[in-house]
């Protein structure tokens, strides 16, 4: 019963998740992983930081999943801009970079998590569920 209620409420008020990655392939993979895990039925995408900033204001996502290395604006720069503009949103990195120093930088900047690429959809869901539930 509670499972049904949970599913029903998700449908009424789906999580809106913004994927920011300059790689179309990786946006597709992250999007697929979200759907497989039944996390976030409302997925929007941006291929660069400036586009993400616009979408953050217009679409107001619940969560941002962002790549670290992007040509125009890095993920870290995007997060800092969000803070500077007073935009509050759950933010995490999905990146092939995962050195301890980068994890520290990410956390210091306000990121909730850093998921390393590649990932299995199970591991991906395991990391995201508590964040979305909080």
């Amino acid at each position: 019963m509670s499972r049904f209620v949970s599913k029903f409420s998700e449908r009424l008020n789906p999580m809106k998740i913004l994927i920011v990655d300059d790689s179309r392939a990786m946006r597709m993979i992250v999007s697929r992983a979200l759907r497989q895990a039944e996390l976030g039925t409302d997925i929007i995408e941006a291929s660069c930081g400036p586009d993400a900033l616009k979408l953050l204001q217009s679409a107001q996502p619940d969560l941002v999943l962002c790549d670290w290395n992007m040509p125009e604006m890095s993920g870290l720069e995007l997060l800092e801009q969000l803070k500077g503009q007073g935009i509050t949103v759950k933010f995490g990195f999905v990146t092939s970079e995962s050195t301890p120093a980068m994890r520290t930088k990410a956390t210091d900047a306000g990121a909730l998590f850093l998921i390393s690429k590649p990932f299995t959809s199970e591991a991906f869901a395991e990391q995201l569920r508590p964040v979305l539930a909080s």
Partner: protein
Amino acid sequence: MNSSKPGIVPSGALTDSSCVGGIRAEAIEGLLTCLLGREVKAHRQSRPRQAPLNSPTSGIYRDDSGQSRAVFSCDIGLAASAAAALTLIPPGVASEAIAAKVLTDMLRENLGEILNVCAQLLNEIYEYHVVLREVCTGHRLPPDAVDESNRHGLDFDVTVRGYGGGRLLVLTRLEVEHIKVPNRR
């Protein structure tokens, strides 16, 4: 000594790096299986083969100072198969690319993402930190990509389940002191 010119994807005449550690077949299998979401098998040849790669695509990895540290070169068979598998592009599209010896834009973009993630294979075993900086098609590489006198190579056969496969040649500088834990994986 070594007949290959700098700036060319070499074949043969490479020092086998198994004596100093380096990337192992199991690490490639693990990373690509996870990334592609399907079984990938990798087998390392006992020594690099003389035959050149067929229509290669290469990723050049540079450290934070910009120095080239490694090159991953895939032949067209592996490049097309892995790139197609990444986003579930039908295997027939990969077969067409292999026959034409050229990757479509989407396959090339997908391969770039695979090569990008492959930086982990280097960062796990070397003390320096590298990222993928360039992707080159064909046998010509930037002049500083591979140091003529100081390199070692690993020659793998890699197969992606449901798609096919081909060769992967990994070239790194022979700098034993930068390996974190030799033969760790």
